[in-house]
């Protein structure tokens, strides 16, 4: 599988994952944190998952008990972690949480 297209928004998504590489994020959380519409975030997540940079699984809750649909949680893979770091380093983008925001 070739590397996915790295648009500006894709890099933003990757940087978000690199801030907390072990954290599992739902599509809705990513939209909220980046302030983008679903139409932007979901195709990126699916593309990164097809390239095996991300892996995803359903949240372990019962939708009836939780009173809401399950979330699909995404996490960086080892490949994704290395590739994302390379991609951001290549562009000179600082990875991880910015001191300003921490």
């Amino acid at each position, binding site marked *: *599988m070739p590397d996915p297209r790295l648009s500006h928004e894709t890099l933003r998504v990757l940087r978000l994952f690199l801030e907390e590489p072990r954290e599992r994020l*739902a*599509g809705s959380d990513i939209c909220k944190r980046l302030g983008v*519409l*679903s139409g*932007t975030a979901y*195709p990126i997540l699916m593309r990164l998952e*097809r390239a095996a940079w991300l892996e995803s699984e359903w949240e372990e809750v019962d939708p009836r008990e939780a009173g*809401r649909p399950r979330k*699909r949680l995404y996490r960086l893979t080892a490949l994704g972690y290395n590739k994302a770091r390379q991609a951001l380093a290549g562009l000179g983008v600082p990875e991880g949480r910015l001191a300003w925001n921490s």
Partner: protein
Amino acid sequence: MEFLASILVAIIVVELYAWLPKIAEWLRELAVSRVRAEDRERCREEWKERLNGLPNTVIRVVDAFSLLGAARQINADVCEDKLAELNTRLAHLSDIHHRNCRKVKEAEQLFWSNRESRDTRFRCAEKDLQESNLRLLDASAPHPSLQMSVKRMQELTDNFVKTLHVSFERTDHLMEEMIGRHVIKIKEGEIVLREILVAYASAKHLLRYRLKSLRFLASSVADLETKVSQLEMDIDHENECPENDEPLAEYNRISGARASVGNARRL
């Protein structure tokens, strides 16, 4: 009048606002129906969770509307991935096809050169045989009974030479037929390969410039995938094991028979 108009506008606004959740749901379902079947359930649940988490119904509609774009982008990405995979498969097939072409050409050249050298050697052997027969006839002239035997042997040798001629012709014909069949298969494979390459290039062009509906393009890509799978089988048969070939089996049978005749003569 103004009072009535304001009441009417208020009613319409309230009605519209009340319909917004339904519209958002309808847009979401429309987007879900546009992604490929295997992703539908996942997208439905994931997108529902996202829309439910949004506080405002207007924002929800805007976000649901953006899902139509998401479905389009996801379809385009899937088509792109499929085309990339098909490209690799086509390159591999093209390599195999070229290798097969080379093999058949080499086999054809080998056949003609073998045939030529065999015929030359055979003509020399025939000439030597005739000369030695003549010498034997001369030598056996004083002994009539021996001469009779020599003449009988000459007849047998002539018959054997004729049989060899016939068997060579038959073998050559069968080999030519077999090579011809492989050449036809190679040519047919090449035509299909070219057609598929053109279809691939056109699908890629359509995808690049979004010239056709992605759903239609997805079906074209699926069609292309089927054709490539068929071609993979055809190209595999292009190079089918010659041992399975009927003419070659016939050729082996004749060679065996010829060897037996040779052995019998030696005995």
